[in-house]
């Protein structure tokens, strides 16, 4: 015999991700100072932060939308645009710079016809730069879809993303 209080209702939007986001906000007791944690979670669930999502979070935390938007735009890791299927993050820290990260960046930009921070038109690849991955011992370092590889060269990076660019063949 289930009482009404124990029945888990599906989220009205029918979107499981929103339910997970709500659970995170609830865990933080809708505290306004947990905004950054909640934005991290939202980006993890949705891949990027669209305006409606920011408005939803603002509403739930009883914050002005300007404040939520302000925080989302202040921090580099929050993205307001959809990301590509694959990501390639080039470290441009000092050690990588000394060991030729600039040349890698120039080559990849030329090959993919996009600048750092952009996504290819076919939505396959997002090219990003990181300030420092802290993997200076193995510079130059590049992150392919979350996997860090060290001692990279322009050739080795271009080889890896070649397949991604050709319409997502692995």
């Amino acid at each position, binding site marked *: 015999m289930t009482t009404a209080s124990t029945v888990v209702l599906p989220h009205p939007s029918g979107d499981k991700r929103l339910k997970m986001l709500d659970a995170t906000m609830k865990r933080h007791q809708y*505290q*306004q*100072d*947990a*905004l*950054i*944690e909640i*934005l*991290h979670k939202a980006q993890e669930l949705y891949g990027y932060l669209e305006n409606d999502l920011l408005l939803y979070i603002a509403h739930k935390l009883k914050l002005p939308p300007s*404040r939520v938007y*302000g*925080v989302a735009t*202040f*921090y*580099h*890791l*929050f993205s307001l645009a959809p990301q590509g299927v694959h990501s390639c993050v080039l470290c*441009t*820290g*000092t*050690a990588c*710079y*000394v*060991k030729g990260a600039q040349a890698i960046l120039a080559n990849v930009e030329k090959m993919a016809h996009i600048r750092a921070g952009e996504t290819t038109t076919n939505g396959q690849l997002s090219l990003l730069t*990181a*300030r*420092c*991955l*802290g*993997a*200076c*011992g*193995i*510079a130059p*370092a590049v992150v392919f879809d979350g*996997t*860090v*590889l*060290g001692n990279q060269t322009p050739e080795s990076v271009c080889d890896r993303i070649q397949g991604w660019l050709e319409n997502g063949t692995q």
Partner: protein
Amino acid sequence: MELNELLAIAKQERSQAKPVQIRCCTAAGCLSGNAEGVKHELEAGIKAEGLEKDVEVSGVGCMRLCCQGPLVQVDTPAGSKLYEKVTTQDAFAIIEALDGGKTHISEIDLSQPFFSYQKPIVLENSGKIDPEKIQAYIAAKGYQALYHVLREMTPGEVVESISHSGLRGRGGAGYPTGVKWATVAKAKSDRKFVICNADEGDPGAFMDRSVLESDPHRVLEGMAIAAYAVGANQGYIYVRAEYPVAIRRLQTAIHQAQRLGLLGSQIFESPFDFKIDIRIGAGAYVCGEETALMASIEGKRGLPHPRPPYPAESGLWGHPTLINNVETFANIAPIIRNGADWFASIGTEKSKGTKVFALAGKIRNTGLIEVPMGTSLRQIVEEMGGGVPDGGTAKAVQTGGPSGGCIPASAFDTPVDYESLTNLGSMMGSGGMIVMDDSTNMVDVARFFMEFCMDESCGKCIPCRVGTVQMHGLLTKLMQGKATQADLALLEELCDMVKNTSLCGLGQSAPNPVLSTLRYFRQEYVELIQEYLELIKD
């Protein structure tokens, strides 16, 4: 938890240790070389050979020599071997050679200066214990300092002891830690906070990450001791989101410590309660500045605000707050355990103890070193680092990240301590040390750092927001060979202005790389102007 229980855990852990230990480095550098796979292969191999009774395979923290990773250390009663660049195919050979045989895998000489000059205090457990096992930390005398502090010392005595040790802030500025603690301890408030600054944003620095990945409990213990000394009950660790491994291991460590009652309420049956939460950054360099960091913890944009009031009086949510760097906290437990006099006997007159540096750039041995304060740059670069590869010569060492400067080869005999580096126009900084050789253009280095500061400026104050853009423009003009003498004069004037009128440390130190390259490598700037003059002549 009582002391005898703690000692029982340590004793049990030690008695379970098997005679042969195979340790695989699982810090971020080696992980990128598939250290995880190597560890799995070794475990499977030991199982297949039926050697589980005598041999233990464990993942440990950083073993220092990152450039030769993945590293595997084998300790047998006969001695130790450190294998380099181990692949999954090498696992079988390592197991074959456990009885003292030879392998085809190259071994690292543990007696070379890179290892022998080190004096591990902060890194004493790094590469020796499993960071994801609290028992291993307890077996290495972990949490004994906390017990001693809570049961046998007053908060005042703890502050006194830290003051006496001469420990200074390892975040780079070198403010005496004891003085900071005393200020927070004196502040009157019903709530106080302790914050660990693990927002290691300087490019070229990875010491804090290694400490968190290799020995997270050491930082928690240091924070708990600090909290007791200043009267705080809540701690925050502010970690960069770029360090997922460190975040995961910290979460594990906090969880384990809470389960054993080493964090939480009534620690060691004393009236002292202390809770630690992790706050994850979102990629803003300015958040390493303490006032901006606190704004970020409060869920706001990371904008700094003018000091005073200092965090020690009015910090997080307006309450007195103690903020120290990871490495500062990592030094606390050993100071309590071995005594302030022991710590004060290491290092130079004004800079006590050791410093961890991240050695990188154009140098043979890149990785992590911990050396006593006062070790000369020459010893670090030439003897420990093994000099520049491919026969180049070292031209300069960059310390202190974007706030620091470049130290020319002519000054390599300088002992490394806070004052000497400041006198050279650089700074200790957090501990990144990047070696540059002849092929590096110093003006371009200055431009690289200026670009960094320009991107990372939070935009609150005009000198930094506008000044960095202008300086970057001038440096770019120089690099293109289109600058005149007047541009150089303007650059110097701007440096002076930005340095003296910016609101926070980011802006105040942004001109440092330019000033220090101008000071030691002015010729390179002048040459770029010469080019322009000749161009007009034609």
